[in-house]
C-alpha cells in the first residue's frame, strides 16, 4: 500500500492551482497538435520543450505529459471525421470510425473513441502506480551488465515486434546508434565521426531528428495526398454521450483485452501503433459482430483506442523506472528530464518522490480533464481542421524551424532538421521504421557506456552477460526477440500454415 500513500502525496503536489492550469493548457495544445498534420506527440513535445525551461520540473513535466495525453485524444478526431489518421496509432480507428461518421454517427464514434482512450489510460496508469515502485526497487540492484541487457531487450523487441522487415529495422536502428556516436566520446574524449568539422562536434541531437523526421517528413507525405481535406461535421451533446455510454458496458471484454495488449506493448517498446492494430485484430476475431467490422462497428473503434492509449501511458513505466523510454514521445520526455537535471532510472523514485508521484497523479487527473476537454471542444477542433492546408502547412513548417533552432540556438540545426525531414519522407515510403532510429539516437550513448562499463569490470569477458540468472534471462529474452521473425517462420512452417498476414495494413 506504499504506492497508494505515495499517490496521495502526489495529488498534494497537484493542489498548486498553477499546475492544474498548466495541465489544461497542455491538453488543449495537445489536442491541437494531435489534429494538425505534421505535428504529433513526439515532435510537438520536442518543439515546446524549450518553453518549459523556466518552469519548475514538476510543472513542466505535467504540462508536457498533458500535451501527450491531448495528442493521444486528438488523433481520434481526424480519424473519425476526416479519415486521416492524425497519429500513426489512430490508423486502426479509421477502419470503423470513419464509416460511422459517414452514416451520421460521428458523435457516437467520437464518444466511443474518447471513452476507450480514457479506459485504456486508466488501466495503464493503475498498472504504472503499482508496478513502477516494484520495478524501480528491483532495478536499484542493477549493474552495468543488467542495464545493457535491458537496452538489448528494448532494441531486440523492435526487431521481434516490428511490422517492418527485420533488416530494415536493424539498419534504421544502427543508423540511430551511429548518429549518436558522432561527437566527443564520453569515455576517452576522442573525436568520433566528426571529419574535422566543428559543427559536428556537438553531435546530433535527437530532438532535431524528431522534429525533422516526424514533422517535416509528415508534411511532405500529407502534401502528396493533395491539398484538400473533406471531412464530416460532428456535434456532440450530452444526449449522444449518455446514449453511447449506455451501449459501451457490454464491450467490457474488448476494453479489458485492449488495455492489456496496450500495457504489454507499451512497456516492451512495441508502442501504441502495433498495440492498436493487434487489439483491433483480436476484437474482430472474438467479437460476435466480427464480420461487420470495417462497416461502422462501435466495437471496432473502442478496441484500438483503448489499446493505443494504454500503450501510450504505460510507455512511461520503463522510462521512469529504468530510464529507457518505450516510445519516441517518452524519449522526448526523457530528454526533458535530463535537461532539468533529473536522471531517470530507479533512483528517481528514491530521490525525487515529489516529482514522480506528482507526475503519476497528474496522469489520473490529466485523463479525466482530457476526456472533458475533448467531449466539449470537438466542433472547435473540427473547425480548425477546415483551415486549408496551404495556410496550415507553412505555419507548421515555421513552428518546426523555431523548435529546431531553440534546442541549441544553432542555425545549422534548422538545415539538419530539413535533411531529416527528407529522410523521414523516403524512409516512411519504403517502410523503414522511425521509432527505433529515434530511440537508438537517444539511448546510444547510455547503451554504449553501460556496455563498456560492463566490459571493463569483466576485463573484456563477454560471459558477464550470462553471469547470473537475471542478466542471463534478459539476454535470452533479447535473443528470442531478435530471432523472432525466424522463429515465427519456423513455427508457421511446422504448423503447415501460410505465414501470418497481419502486417499488411499499415
Amino acid at each position, binding site marked *: 500500500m506504499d504506492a497508494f500513500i505515495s499517490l496521495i502525496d502526489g495529488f498534494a503536489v497537484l493542489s498548486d492551482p498553477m499546475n492544474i492550469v498548466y495541465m489544461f493548457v497542455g491538453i488543449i495544445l495537445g489536442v491541437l497538435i494531435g489534429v494538425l498534420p505534421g505535428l504529433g506527440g513526439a515532435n510537438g513535445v520536442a518543439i515546446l520543450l*524549450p*518553453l518549459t525551461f*523556466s518552469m519548475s520540473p514538476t510543472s513542466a513535466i505535467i504540462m508536457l505529459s498533458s500535451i501527450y495525453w491531448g495528442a493521444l485524444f486528438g488523433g481520434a478526431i481526424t480519424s473519425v471525421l476526416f479519415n486521416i489518421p492524425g497519429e500513426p496509432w489512430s490508423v486502426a480507428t479509421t477502419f470503423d470510425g470513419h464509416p460511422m461518421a459517414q452514416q451520421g454517427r460521428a458523435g457516437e464514434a467520437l464518444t466511443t473513441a474518447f471513452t476507450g482512450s480514457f479506459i485504456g489510460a486508466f488501466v495503464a496508469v493503475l498498472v504504472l502506480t503499482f508496478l513502477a515502485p516494484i520495478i524501480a526497487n528491483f532495478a536499484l540492484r542493477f549493474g552495468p551488465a543488467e542495464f545493457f541487457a535491458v537496452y538489448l531487450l528494448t532494441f531486440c523487441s523492435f526487431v521481434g515486434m516490428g511490422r517492418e*522487415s*527485420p*533488416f*530494415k529495422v*536493424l*539498419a534504421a536502428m*544502427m*543508423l540511430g*546508434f*551511429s548518429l549518436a*556516436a558522432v561527437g566527443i*566520446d564520453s*569515455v*576517452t574524449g*576522442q*573525436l*568520433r*565521426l566528426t*571529419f574535422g568539422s566543428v559543427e559536428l562536434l556537438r553531435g546530433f541531437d535527437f530532438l532535431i531528428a524528431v522534429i525533422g523526421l516526424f514533422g*517535416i517528413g509528415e*508534411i*511532405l507525405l500529407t*502534401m*502528396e495526398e*493533395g*491539398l484538400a481535406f473533406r471531412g464530416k461535421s460532428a456535434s456532440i451533446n450530452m444526449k449522444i454521450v449518455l446514449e453511447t455510454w449506455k451501449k459501451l458496458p457490454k464491450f467490457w471484454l474488448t476494453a479489458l483485452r485492449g488495455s492489456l495488449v496496450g500495457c504489454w506493448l507499451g512497456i516492451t517498446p512495441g508502442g501504441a501503433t502495433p498495440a492498436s492494430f493487434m487489439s483491433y485484430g483480436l476484437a474482430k476475431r472474438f467479437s460476435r459482430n466480427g464480420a461487420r467490422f470495417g462497416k461502422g462497428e462501435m466495437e471496432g473503434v473502442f478496441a484500438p483506442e483503448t489499446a493505443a492509449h494504454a500503450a501510450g501511458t504505460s510507455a512511461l513505466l520503463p522510462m521512469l523506472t529504468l530510464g529507457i523510454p518505450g516510445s519516441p514521445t517518452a524519449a522526448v520526455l526523457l530528454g526533458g528530464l535530463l535537461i532539468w537535471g533529473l536522471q531517470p532510472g530507479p533512483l528517481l523514485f528514491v530521490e525525487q518522490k515529489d516529482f514522480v508521484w506528482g507526475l503519476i497523479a497528474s496522469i489520473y487527473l490529466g485523463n479525466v480533464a482530457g476526456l472533458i476537454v475533448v467531449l466539449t471542444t470537438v466542433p472547435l477542433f473540427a473547425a480548425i481542421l477546415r483551415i*486549408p492546408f*496551404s*495556410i496550415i*502547412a*507553412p*505555419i507548421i*513548417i*515555421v513552428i518546426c*524551424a*523555431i523548435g529546431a*533552432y*531553440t534546442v541549441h*540556438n544553432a*542555425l545549422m540545426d*534548422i*538545415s539538419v532538421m*530539413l535533411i531529416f*525531414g*527528407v529522410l523521414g*519522407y*523516403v*524512409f516512411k*515510403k*519504403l517502410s*523503414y521504421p522511425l521509432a527505433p532510429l529515434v530511440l537508438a539516437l537517444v539511448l546510444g550513448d547510455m547503451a*554504449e557506456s553501460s*556496455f*563498456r562499463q560492463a*566490459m*571493463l569490470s569483466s576485463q*573484456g569477458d563477454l560471459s558477464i552477460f550470462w553471469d547470473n540468472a537475471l542478466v542471463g534471462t534478459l539476454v535470452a529474452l533479447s535473443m528470442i526477440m531478435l530471432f523472432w521473425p525466424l522463429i515465427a517462420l519456423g513455427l508457421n512452417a511446422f504448423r503447415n500454415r501460410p505465414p501470418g498476414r497481419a502486417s499488411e495494413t499499415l
Partner: protein
Amino acid sequence: MTHVTPGSESGNEHTVSTRVMELVVSAGFIAVSILVMWDSRRIGASWASDGPEAGYFPFYIALIMFLSSAVTFVSNIVTRAPDRSNFVQRSQLALVLRVLIPTAVFVVLIGYLGIYLSSALFIAFFMWWLGKYPVYKVIPVAVAVPLITFMMFEIWFLVPLPKGPIEAALGY
C-alpha cells in the same frame, strides 16, 4: 529522384520504381556504414590494455548496419518478384517539391533575414503560390503569425530567436 523535372505536365506518371529506391536507400546505408567503420578503425576499434577503444562500439554497430542493408540490397536484386510499382507519382512529386524547395529557401533566408521576416515571406509566398489566395487574405496571416511568435518568444518566454537587419533597425 531529383532527375525528374518538377511540374511537368506530361501524362506519364512514372518516376522511379520502388525497387530502384530500395536499392538506392540500402546502398546509402551501406555507404554510411563503410564510412563509420573506416573512421572507427582510424581511432581504434580493438581492445586496448585499458578496455574497449573509442571506435569499438561504433565499428560493430556499423558492421550490423552493413550486413542488414546488404541483405535488403541483395534481396531486391535477386528477387523473383521485383517491386516495379511507382515510388512516387510525377504529380505527387511535383507537389512535394513545391513544399520542399520553398522550405529550403526559407531555411537559407533565416540566416540572413532572421526568422521573423523570413517566416512572413515564406507564409505569404506559400499562400499566394500554392493556395492562390488574394493579397488581402495573405497579408494578415503573414504578418500575424510572426508577430505572435515574436511576442511569445522574445517577450513572454524570453527565448531569443535569430534576428536580422529589420529587427536590429527596430532596436532588438
